[in-house]
């Protein structure tokens, strides 16, 4: 099934808002907006959809520059962006709980011990010529709340040098990303270079030095071309 990042029924409205209509079409749209409440509401809805897609990182590339120029630059635009971002976080939080509940149900059904982390082997002793020790792997849930309650807790095995964080790749997004690790206080602890996810891969894998993490809360932000795509919250014990 084709995935649409935006409602295809509102294409004309998107193009109007972004200044992509020709003069005749633009004048028609102006008249409709000014004379008809339903037409005006469709454009309002299209405007909200653009902001929501932008904060999800799902805005089509051809819309990005006109969106930033025409809609984002104003004071209203910044308010709309703040609200869209907050709504997106709230939505991710509730979807995350549904996801956690589904996984918990699955685990209960198949009897696998519940753990958020696949542990690496015991503290490695590295011998010359031996393969590098495997990293600890943490699977970041699809969105989560920043609040202390309910966020996943990971315990890093002693002696592990790297952590491989696997963040879900938002559908329809690029394959090149950057990843930033922040403490609970918002201090940036580590930034990746360009991270590439295989086309079609469901995960964005990123190797982070284990020394970045001390016990406490963390936020991982995945961005693409400077726009945030997803936020993941967890705690290290």
């Amino acid at each position, binding site marked *: 099934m084709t*995935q*649409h*990042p*935006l*409602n295809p029924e509102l294409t004309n409205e998107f193009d*109007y*808002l972004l200044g992509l209509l020709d003069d005749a079409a633009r*004048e028609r749209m*102006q*008249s409709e*907006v*000014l*004379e*008809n*409440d*339903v037409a*005006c*509401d469709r*454009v*309002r*809805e299209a*405007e*909200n*959809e653009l902001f*929501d*897609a932008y904060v*999800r990182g*799902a805005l089509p590339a051809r819309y990005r520059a006109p969106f930033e120029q*025409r809609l984002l630059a*104003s004071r*209203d635009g*910044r*308010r*709309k*962006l*703040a*609200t869209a*971002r*907050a*709504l997106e*976080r*709230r*939505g991710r939080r*509730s*979807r995350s709980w549904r996801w956690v509940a589904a996984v918990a149900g699955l685990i209960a059904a198949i009897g696998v011990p519940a753990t958020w982390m696949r542990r690496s082997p015991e503290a490695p002793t590295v011998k010359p010529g031996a393969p590098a020790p495997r990293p600890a792997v943490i699977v970041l849930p699809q969105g989560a709340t*920043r609040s202390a309650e309910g966020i996943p807790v990971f315990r890093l095995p002693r002696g592990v040098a790297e952590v491989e964080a696997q963040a879900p790749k938002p*559908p*329809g997004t690029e394959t090149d990303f950057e990843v930033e690790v922040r403490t609970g206080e*918002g201090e940036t602890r580590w930034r990746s270079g360009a991270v590439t996810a295989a086309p079609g891969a469901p995960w964005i894998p990123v190797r982070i030095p284990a020394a970045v993490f001390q016990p406490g809360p963390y936020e991982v932000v995945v961005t693409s071309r400077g726009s945030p795509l997803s936020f993941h919250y967890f705690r290290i014990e």
Partner: protein
Amino acid sequence: MTLSGQEFDALLRALHPDRAAAGEEYEKLRSRLVAFFRWEGCAAAEDWADEVINRVARRVAKGEAIRNLPAFVSGVARLAAREAGRRQARESGNLIEMPAPAGAHAAADEHPAKCLDQCLNALDGDARDLILRYYDGDAEARIRNRKALAAELGISLNSLRNRALRLRDRLESCVGNCLEDDSRDISGFKDTR
């Protein structure tokens, strides 16, 4: 120049013979005008909306024969938008773009979630549920969710959109005020669907 009471009354009569219904029509007209000027990139959208209303009301009060008032307003508004564009272009030549203050983006990232929670908590449960479900998920999920939500509520998709848009407008206004002044009392923010 402000509008006289006589001119305003003439406009209301032209909008609808019933005074209460005319008031509603006036609010809708002004709301469309503000949105239009905002989408046309006018910095002072509300001022330009009022300017158009003033110009139209004066013409109506002078007894000008206007057969189709919405179309007439539309024409005046489009001319005004061009005027606003020219004026802005002239004035922007004298402006120097100021960079956003340091930390502005960090602050914008930090507080919206807290403000949204506060503003959502000021809504009643049904309204909160409606807006969260209406704006949840990506484009395809939204189309599915909205059909299901409209069926659940027994209303058309248009009515549902209307409710959601009004709620979102209120949320944006509440979140915006909260961001500008964290200490602002938001207890007055109520759902008045």
